[in-house]
């Protein structure tokens, strides 16, 4: 087994895949380590063609599943029969909660790139300047102009469908043709444009091909089956498995090693550089060391941070790059589960074709200057949602009671319903943190993660506004039975955990610099969600991918200059 490489990439999700592709394409001999099993595109998607009736009780979460994936089931959707194999076994992979924290993840090649929500939005300078303006935490070391070309590059490669609408807080991008709105969504769009100067409704921007093809393993246009979380036989949605890993493979420079748990990054105190990583083979428990000139941690926020915390040396007694004591702190997510829904009796003779795995989007309209600024909370939120009619049957059908007429009515589409769910920014708080518990080890003898974090007053105040504005917009559109809701939310439920090794300008207050390098160990890059200095209010994966491509480019330039 070869133990010397130019680069090592830890993780194979959205960022690991991008690091692998970029580094391999730029000629680096790259070892890609994945702690879980191999998942080959199409071949290892066992449920891609299943209908609900192919399962004993339909595509639901069963009691058997809850026994071994109790925490992974907290979302209510991640562990249904068709998806559960892409999420971890909670018995085998335990974690601890001082306060409830919902940590959903999958350990396999492709990681959560197979199961992600695919919503792809850019951060803006409203986000990059926010901490500085508000006096919260620390300033981002980059601005929109630093990332904009990389957003463009990533969008073009992965394929993102959406519509340019020309809003400064919701920048235009490199989009494939948008999906279509349903009749009720179209109605809400007109109503919002008529009733509000400060907001609009558009179709979601999603990493799904809607026209033409994209590079990878035969990636082509969406067939509208809405089975994205199972892996796509058409490669229509972006995943590492269909796109970036095949690109890396094609160069001949990639060595992909599944079942490889990285326990630490090894520090060479003479050279003041990392020399490689220590790996536990998850099946044999044998320990290996691999060396490289540059290391990319792309294991997702919590695991990448855990690896750094475990990387203790005389020079870094509290974990690699942790001289700031910021490692593990400032954990963020997007808070959700608040909004409103409604029904309408209109459009009874209208329907839709195809199952659109995408929703509507109402971009942020709070705290972006002038009259949008709020007294009760900082930052903002967007809404995602949709209007459909297939699912509900009770309202109209119940009038038929039961029997033959009722049965006939059940076969027709139900009434239309529409919902708006808020996605709000969570501020970085130093005392929202993860730590390692060395008293409770996992089956490989590694410490388990303990979460102690919660949303606070700013988020709670924002939630009131999120509910109220959703109700108001639906009422203004003339919908019926408008009901607001504020459900059960704990950090992590957005599956956007981030911020635990933040970027910054100063090594005293941050872990990473403006290029995602650890301040104190410049040949280690962390480019997953751990790097986030603030959360913004949009789905973050596109930003992680753009940061990764940018960092990989930087690493290669630095290697050429012999700086690493």
């Amino acid at each position, binding site marked *: 087994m070869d133990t010397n490489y130019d680069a090592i990439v830890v993780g194979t999700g959205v960022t690991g895949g991008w690091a692998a592709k970029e580094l391999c394409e730029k000629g680096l001999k790259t070892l890609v380590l994945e702690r879980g099993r191999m998942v080959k595109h199409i071949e290892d998607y066992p449920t891609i063609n299943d209908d609900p009736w192919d399962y004993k009780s339909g595509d639901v*979460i069963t009691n058997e599943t809850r026994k071994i994936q109790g925490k992974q089931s907290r979302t209510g959707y991640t562990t249904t029969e068709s998806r559960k194999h892409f999420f971890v076994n909670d018995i085998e992979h335990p974690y601890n909660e001082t306060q409830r924290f919902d940590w959903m993840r999958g350990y396999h090649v492709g990681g959560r790139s197979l199961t992600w929500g695919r919503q792809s939005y850019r951060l803006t300078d409203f986000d990059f300047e926010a901490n500085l303006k508000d006096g919260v935490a620390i300033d981002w070391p980059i601005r929109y102009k630093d990332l904009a070309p990389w957003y463009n590059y990533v969008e073009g490669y992965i394929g993102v469908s959406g519509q340019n609408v020309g809003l400064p807080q919701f920048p235009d991008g490199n989009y494939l043709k948008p*999906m279509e709105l349903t*009749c009720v969504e179209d109605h809400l769009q007109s109503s919002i444009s008529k009733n509000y100067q400060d907001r609009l409704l558009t179709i979601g921007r999603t990493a799904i091909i809607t026209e033409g093809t994209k590079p990878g393993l035969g990636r082509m246009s969406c067939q509208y*089956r809405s089975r994205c979380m199972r892996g796509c036989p058409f490669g229509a949605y972006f995943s590492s498995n269909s796109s970036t890993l095949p690109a890396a493979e094609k160069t001949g420079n990639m060595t992909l090693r599944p079942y490889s748990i990285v326990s630490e990054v090894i520090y060479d105190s003479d050279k003041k550089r990392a020399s490689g990583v220590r790996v536990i083979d998850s099946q044999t428990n044998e320990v290996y060391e691999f060396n490289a000139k540059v290391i990319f941690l792309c294991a997702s926020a919590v695991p990448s941070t855990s690896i750094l915390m475990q990387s203790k040396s005389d020079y870094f007694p509290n974990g690699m790059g942790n001289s700031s004591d910021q490692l593990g702190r400032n954990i963020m997510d997007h808070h959700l589960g608040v909004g409103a829904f409604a029904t309408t009796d209109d*459009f009874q003779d209208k*329907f839709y*074709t195809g199952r659109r795995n995408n929703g509507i989007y109402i971009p942020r309209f709070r705290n972006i200057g002038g009259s949008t600024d709020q007294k009760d909370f900082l930052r903002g939120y967007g809404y995602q949602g949709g209007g459909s009619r297939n699912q509900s049957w009770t309202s109209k059908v119940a009038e038929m009671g039961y*029997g033959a007429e009722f049965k006939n009515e059940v*076969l027709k589409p139900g009434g239309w319903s529409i919902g708006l769910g808020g996605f709000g920014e969570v501020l970085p708080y130093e005392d929202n943190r993860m730590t390692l518990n060395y008293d409770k080890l996992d089956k490989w003898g590694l410490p388990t993660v303990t979460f102690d974090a919660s949303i606070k007053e700013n988020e709670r105040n924002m939630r009131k506004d999120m509910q109220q504005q959703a109700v108001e917009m639906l009422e203004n559109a003339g919908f019926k039975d408008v009901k607001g809701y504020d459900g059960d939310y704990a950090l992590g439920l957005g599956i956007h955990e981030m911020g635990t090794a933040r970027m910054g300008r100063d090594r005293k207050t941050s872990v990473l610099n403006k290029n995602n390098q650890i301040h104190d160990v410049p040949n280690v890059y962390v480019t997953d969600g751990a790097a986030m200095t603030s959360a913004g209010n949009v789905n973050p994966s596109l930003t992680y991918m753009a940061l990764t491509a940018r960092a990989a480019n930087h690493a290669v330039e630095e290697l050429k200059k012999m700086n690493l």
Partner: protein
Amino acid sequence: MDRRKALKNIGTGFGAIAVTPTVVSLFQRCQSAATYAPVYFSPSDFEKILQLMELIIPATDIPGAIELKLPEFTDSYIASVWDEDRQGKFAEGWKVFLTASAAISGKGVDQMNASDWDVVLSKYLKPGSEISGAENDAASFASQLRSLTVNAFKTNEFIGENVLAYAPIPGEQRGCVDLMEATGGKAWSL
């Protein structure tokens, strides 16, 4: 002949919605004669559930609850999907429902026939029926049983592939189209 394969083969020969008497009679012939051993319900309760569900989704030109094995699906669904707490509450509701049913019919619940159960369901599920506060739990059980029956009906392979509008690979997406042109007035099965 394997019933599932038989139905799949036949399904492809007809439109997405049309179900002819031929299909139905073949469907009936293929029914398994084996008796089902319920997991959640006791055998005697299951007999009653069978009758109630057949009243909710009766056989028409499309097979009804018993032919489609909706009671079997539901029994297994409750046992394997609902947690203990929910199962327990449902069992309590069932007891209350049985007591109320006996009072309405003036018979022991084991002696009640389909038309007796019809009277009970009519009281609890037909709109406009007056329900006293004391009967709320029984009525709510009936409504829950109806939801379960509809869930089983809509998750059924025959219904999903041959009766509802079935498009496993739609190929395109149109946001706002005419209902009759899209599906002939039916719901999508997926």
